[in-house]
């Protein structure tokens, strides 16, 4: 029989914490949670969903019964890992952030510099899962716009899960706000936070 957690009479976030503690202590395939208000119903359902449980919701009013069944075999209690956030990825990869501060690589010859930058961005996928974010600032933001020679490459990276950010102030400066075709527009606080969270920051441009 499925383990029963009676969280009636508790208000948020206590029911979620009760379920979380139980899942951390025991490896359960099935459990039933009783709650008695809508807020807890939603929160517990969301939490179980985030831990790879499928939830069948029965009952009404102050007797809500949530029957949960694990959908994947992976032991998905990631809450502990989340608490220690976030510098270690579960697969052992690291988080590399590349700050692209110009639309060309190096100084000397601009035409050459542009070619090198294109080549760099095309090749950077060799970093594999370690590539976490590409952040474009200053004239680097030009690489995220419609006229960019690496637009398709960046769009592919984004689809593959690489976070692509373009500095909003810079886009505005160059009058390119509406020309940006890939990535999220960002601000300096986000950039500072991202560089702090990264395991390694590579500055090119």
């Amino acid at each position, binding site marked *: 029989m499925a383990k029963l957690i009676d969280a009636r009479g508790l*208000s*948020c*976030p206590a029911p*979620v*914490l009760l379920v*979380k503690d139980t899942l951390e202590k025991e490896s359960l395939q099935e459990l039933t949670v009783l709650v008695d*208000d*809508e*807020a807890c119903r*939603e*929160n*517990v*359902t*969301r*939490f*179980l969903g*985030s831990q790879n449980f499928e939830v069948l919701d029965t009952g009404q009013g102050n007797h809500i019964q949530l029957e949960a069944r694990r959908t994947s075999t992976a032991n998905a209690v990631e*809450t502990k890992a*989340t*608490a*220690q*956030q*976030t510098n270690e990825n579960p697969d052992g990869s690291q988080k590399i952030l590349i700050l692209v501060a110009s639309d060309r690589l190096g100084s000397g010859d601009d035409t050459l510099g542009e070619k090198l930058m294109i080549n760099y961005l095309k090749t950077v996928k060799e970093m594999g899962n370690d590539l976490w974010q590409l952040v474009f600032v200053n004239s680097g933001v030009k690489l995220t716009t419609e006229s960019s020679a690496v637009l398709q490459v960046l769009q592919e990276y984004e689809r593959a899960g690489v976070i692509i950010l373009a500095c909003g*102030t810079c886009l*505005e400066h160059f009058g390119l706000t509406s020309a940006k075709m890939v990535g999220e527009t960002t*601000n*300096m*606080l*986000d950039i500072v*936070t991202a560089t*702090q*969270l990264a395991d390694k920051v590579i500055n090119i441009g």
Partner: protein
Amino acid sequence: MGTATADDAGVYRVSDDLALIQTVDFFTPIVDDPYDFGRIAAANSLSDVYAMGGIPKTAMNIVAFPLGKLEKKVLREILSGGIEKIREAGAVLLGGHSIEDDEIKYGLSVTGYVHPQKILTNQGLRPGDCLVLTKPLGTGIIATAVKGGLASEKTVRQVTEQMATLNKQAAELMHGFSVSACTDVTGFGLLGHLAEMIACTGLGVTLDCGRVPVLPEALHFANMGFVPAGAHKNRQHRQAMVTMAEDFSPILRDILFDPQTSGGLLIGCAEKEATVLRNRLRDGGVEYAEIIGYANEKTDEKIELQ
């Protein structure tokens, strides 16, 4: 000015060119560090004066503290945190009152000056006005995750700094702009305070939800079910005024109703000035400032989420 339109503070006119703004607020700790709690509680109390267009002048401590259970040092740190923010606001601490209680509570009673013609209230939004928000949402959800021991130290630090940031800079920078209405986003969440802003105005507003600044970790924790009971209460209370598509993200919806501690200013401002205001706020260090919506052509007193 009284309590009829649910404003942030009371106002008393002393003379033709001086009115007093008075406000009081206090609450239980939302972070573990006593000094940070003091800074946050003080910033939160001072915020009401800024939201009404005033300048804080004097403050008094309000304290409840379990003397038998906790060291006096903890109390001293809370008060020092508060003093840091009072000083930053340019106000002076005149005194205060404390009682013994099982649970810590701290906040300020604040008095500020404002010119009677320059009082800002949450009423006055005009058709076509833009809405600017100056701080990111999600502090309630993250505080809930902190309670659950889930938030990383970095997340705690980031949300602490947001909550401890005074609305002083934002308030000073909005002077000189054609501001029609202002409030600070606190316990009722963005949508609750926006609902108060448009109630009885005959205006409808559209929110461009993709532009609403949100602390990234808040999305993560809302998705894990760490939405405080207050967010649900706010939603129940105001959902009749809010319209959204059927497939609107319930996560984002909860963040828009998330009760904020020491949240940002929600400013109604003429459309043609809104971008300049947003840029000036950002240049002035109000990094998250963003135009998040506008008063639309409808007259239904509803908030449309897009």
